[in-house]
């Protein structure tokens, strides 16, 4: 065993060019695989992150059924009570109460279907990036009649800062209500689709407009950590479930994104399999060549008493060492690029149009190398190397010394 290892180790250094070709194939394969998956994972976590930060939050509390049709009638009657129940829960970072009503916004020029957010101007920015997207004017300050809208919507309505627009929607008393607002600020988020659809007014104004008194549509929460989300939602449901209220996590609120992430991950496992096969086919010839070239030498090894199984072992060890070296070099280079790309990100702006449909993630994607990626990529590469030694090893093991001598 030790002898086969020793011979194998020396054999891989004797033809440096050939081993170099194999190692390069392994390194390139590893690099490509790790980053392909890291980019997918980076996109996935961006998609989730952007959604969460654009208002989905970690957990939302609603009256049961609200998410299906966003009816004003399905509201939280006593938000103060709910808040007092959850305020001191462990794992809770922050919360904000909201009114959400589907409605219509109109300028003299045009009108557009929108989602009206009545928000607590102080609490909302703590769990929503919206205030940071401001490009003109100011964010809401709690004064009566303020509205904060997206640039794309402003364009469509042909309105500017300080212009007046009318917001209309279904009030709690089943009649259509409307009120005029003055544009306090304009924002540009990561997605123009989002900007066209979401408008923000002060919580108090929305409650007045839709005759909701102190009621709200939802209470959004952030947990201290993504891992705390499920347990937080569970303890909230234990507290308030009896009131017909329900805490739902981001996974339940944006199932499409969750599905997309799952699809990406499934795709990643397919990548592992494809790379193993492609790499094994790529390497097997080179290993086979290097073994067949040594046919005579192996014949001599057998003639002087080496058992075929040891010859087999020797070739397998060669595959093992090549795989191992490939991994070492491969990871050194991968980590080097990772360190750079973590800072710079990868610019995908040429595909900006397609990326727009992926939950509004930015055009610069930061690769994320996750544990499973490290494990399965390494494993795949290693298996590919060992697998591609298998055929040459079996072939040469079957040789008899006499055949070996005659073949040269």
């Amino acid at each position, binding site marked *: 065993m030790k*002898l086969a290892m020793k011979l194998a180790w020396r054999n891989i250094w004797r033809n440096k060019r050939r081993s170099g070709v194999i190692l390069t194939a392994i390194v390139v394969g590893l690099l490509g695989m790790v980053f392909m998956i890291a980019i997918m994972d980076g996109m996935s976590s961006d998609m989730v992150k952007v959604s969460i930060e654009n208002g989905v939050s970690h957990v939302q509390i609603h009256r049961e059924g609200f998410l299906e049709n966003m009816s004003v009638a399905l509201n939280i009657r006593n938000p103060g009570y709910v808040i007092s129940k959850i305020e001191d829960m462990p794992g809770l970072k922050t919360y904000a109460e909201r009114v959400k009503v589907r409605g219509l916004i109109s300028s003299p020029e045009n009108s557009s279907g929108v989602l009206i957010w009545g928000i607590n101007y102080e609490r909302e920015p703590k769990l929503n990036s919206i205030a940071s997207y401001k490009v003109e004017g100011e964010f809401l300050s709690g004064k009566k009649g303020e509205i904060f809208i997206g640039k794309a919507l402003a364009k469509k309505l042909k309105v500017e800062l300080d212009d007046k627009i009318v917001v209309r929607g279904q009030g709690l008393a089943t009649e259509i209500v409307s009120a005029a607002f003055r544009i306090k600020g304009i924002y540009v988020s990561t997605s123009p689709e989002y900007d066209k659809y979401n408008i923000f007014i002060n919580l108090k104004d929305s409650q007045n407009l839709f005759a909701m008194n102190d009621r709200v549509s939802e209470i959004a929460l952030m947990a201290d950590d993504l891992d705390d989300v499920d347990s937080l939602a569970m303890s909230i449901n234990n507290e308030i479930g009896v009131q017909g209220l329900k805490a739902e996590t981001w996974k339940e609120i944006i199932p499409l994104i969750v599905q997309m992430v799952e699809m990406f991950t499934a795709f990643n496992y397919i990548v592992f399999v494809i790379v193993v096969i492609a790499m094994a086919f790529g390497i097997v010839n080179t290993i086979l060549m290097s073994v067949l070239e040594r046919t005579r*030498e192996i014949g001599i090894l*057998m003639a002087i*008493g*080496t058992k075929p*199984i040891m010859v087999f072992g020797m070739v397998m060890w060669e595959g093992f060492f090549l795989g191992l070296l490939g991994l070492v070099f491969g990871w050194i280079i991968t980590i080097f690029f990772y360190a750079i790309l973590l800072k710079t990100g990868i610019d995908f702006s040429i595909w900006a149009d397609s990326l727009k449909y992926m939950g509004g993630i930015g055009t610069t994607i930061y690769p994320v190398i996750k544990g499973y990626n490290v494990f399965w990529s390494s494993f795949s590469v290693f298996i590919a190397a060992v697998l591609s030694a298998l055929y040459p090893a079996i072939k040469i093991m079957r040789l008899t010394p006499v055949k070996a*001598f005659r073949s040269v």
Partner: protein
Amino acid sequence: MTDKIIETKKLTKVYEESKVKVNALRGIDLTVKKGEFMAIAGPSGSGKTTLLNIIGGLDSPTEGKVILGGKDLSVLSKSELSEMRLNNLGFIFQAYNLIPVLSALENVEYVMLLQGIKQEERQKRAEEILKEVGLGDYINARPNEMSGGQQQRVAVARAIVSNPNVVLADEPTANLDSTTGESLLVMMSEMNKKRDVTFLFSTHDKMVMDHSERLVILKDGEITEDKQK
């Protein structure tokens, strides 16, 4: 009868790989006694290599059998044959005998390693024998750092180091100039005397035939002459 180290009985070998049948050996009966230093000569294609390969268990006869040290080779499995070669035989081939990635010392040690001899003993014996064949200064040289003659000396050292019953050498001097060849032969002859190892070689070389104590002439797969000197 213990001094009969090799016995072949009606050995025939027919190669049928191509369309033409080749009768490489036609009924060879040969007995070699322990300690002999003998040569098999004959024209090219007469079956010398075939005979040595079959005696060494590297190839199997079409008919007949080889009895080596009292054991019938035909009943041994592939891995038993490896074991038998390891413990009873030494091989020297025409050229490229050595493992290129191992030094002279390691090449000589290799067989002992397979035999499971301990490191210290291995090293000691390998160094001694390399000095004996005049390569004391080349212990750590790789094969490609040595001349053809030096490489053949290492091959002899490797063949002899584990005290085999028989050393089989297929044209060991064919790639060497006559002076180098002769000194190799003298060395083998000394080994033969000193250690009582049987040497059986095939050759074209007049000089080798002159040095041998017994000469068997092969023609078309048959023994035509067998003279003791």
